[in-house]
């Protein structure tokens, strides 16, 4: 039965917090999408030349973007997680209902949400490790990254898992913002999904190419 689950003395439940939190969830997500694209171009520049990446890194260092921007991104990541987690069921019964629904319906968009929820948890842990490692060892240079990856199979396998998960989450997140906030209509949905998948695939390829470039750098 759909009746309000609580009573209130205030006849007007004039509370805007749900709206603000939804705004923040979307905006923090959108900022992180933009950041991820910039991040891709920044580290991807090593494919062209390590000195290009180091040059960009110097700019971030001089302007303070690495020292201040880095922790801001870290904060955004945590904020986005907390806001999005409000929608993720914590009780196993509800999780079971959601999974059963996605399975029974064979419904892509419900599955996309499940992927978002799971990948979000993984990114919280792996992203924190990645950010902590990079930000406690500034400035970022191609050589330092190369050293880290050359010396350790652990770090390589870390990024082999981390890169696809991050891009999956970023791509699906972008698509979901577009359909949830009415930016894309019914007709545009499937073509958006296809284009989005192409961009995600391209980002993953560039990501792995970057990883390989670091591993084989100056060898």
């Amino acid at each position, binding site marked *: 039965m*759909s009746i309000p*689950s609580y009573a209130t003395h205030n006849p007007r439940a004039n509370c805007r917090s*749900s709206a603000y939190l939804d705004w923040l969830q979307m905006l923090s997500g959108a900022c992180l999408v933009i950041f991820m694209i910039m991040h891709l171009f920044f580290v991807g520049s090593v494919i062209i030349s390590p000195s290009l990446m180091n040059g960009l890194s110097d700019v971030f260092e001089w302007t303070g973007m690495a020292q201040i921007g880095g922790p801001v991104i870290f904060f955004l990541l945590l904020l986005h997680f907390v806001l999005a987690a409000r929608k993720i069921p914590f009780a196993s019964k509800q999780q079971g209902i*959601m999974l059963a*629904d996605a399975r*029974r*319906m064979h*419904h892509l968009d419900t599955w996309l949400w499940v992927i978002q929820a799971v990948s979000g948890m993984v990114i919280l842990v792996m992203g924190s490790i990645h950010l902590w490692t990079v930000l406690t060892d500034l400035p970022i240079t191609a050589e330092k990254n190369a050293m880290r990856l050359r010396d350790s199979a652990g770090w390589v396998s870390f990024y082999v898992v981390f890169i696809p998960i991050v891009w999956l989450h970023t791509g699906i997140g972008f698509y979901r913002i577009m359909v949830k906030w009415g930016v894309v*209509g*019914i007709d545009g949905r499937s073509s958006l999904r296809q284009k989005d998948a192409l961009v995600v695939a391209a980002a993953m390829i560039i990501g792995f190419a970057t990883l390989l470039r670091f591993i084989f750098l100056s060898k």
Partner: protein
Amino acid sequence: MARTLTFSIFRYNPQDPASVPHMQEFRLEETESMTLFIALNRLREEQDHSLQFDFCCRAAICGACAMVINGRPGLACHSKTKDYPDKITLMPLPVFKLIGDLSVDTGTWFRGMAKRVESWCHTKKIFDPTAQEERMDNALAERIYELDRCVECGCCVAACGTALMRDDFLGAVALNRVARFVLDPRDERSEQDYFDIIGTDEGVFGCMGLLGCQDVCPKSLPLQEVLGKLRLKMAFAAANHLLPRFLRREIKL
């Protein structure tokens, strides 16, 4: 060659203490242009008189025959057997109270929904039976009618992961209903009035954008667009007073 269809149908009578929920299999020869409406009626007539299911109009107008067909909610009268594999599984709609087998009570839920969103024109004008009826722009009337085509079958609620998880979530049908009154110039409710009804986590901000509603709606209502625009409208309604003038928006549905 006509196919022999196997129907796996949920059986349970909550009124009978001896009844246990289980799936029962039936076999039936497929005939031309067979719908699930035809199939179920034949099964009840020829094989098992105790099979419970709801039907009324057999033309996708009354919304009574909604059930879960091979995992997806849909109208039985609107579903041709030729579009399905040899085995068809039929379950009652979740969320709603089970009456027995495939029959559920959507009426009580929908009455609760209608009361919650106050699904009627709020006006202070006193009706004058002698006056000529007020005119409405035809394009606007058609836009209202487009959303008013909802038959209250309950498929969108049954397909919504959020509604399944949280029983206080309004669901697409309620948000669509509100949108219909937002469009209607005869309803004098303010944006704040609408915000009070749907501007919460049980309303439009609780929608997680799974779009199950859009993908199962037998009437193909534009639920994705309605929910998207309603979210944007309510989000700006809450934030406009904080925004600089050039960023403020009054979203039209």
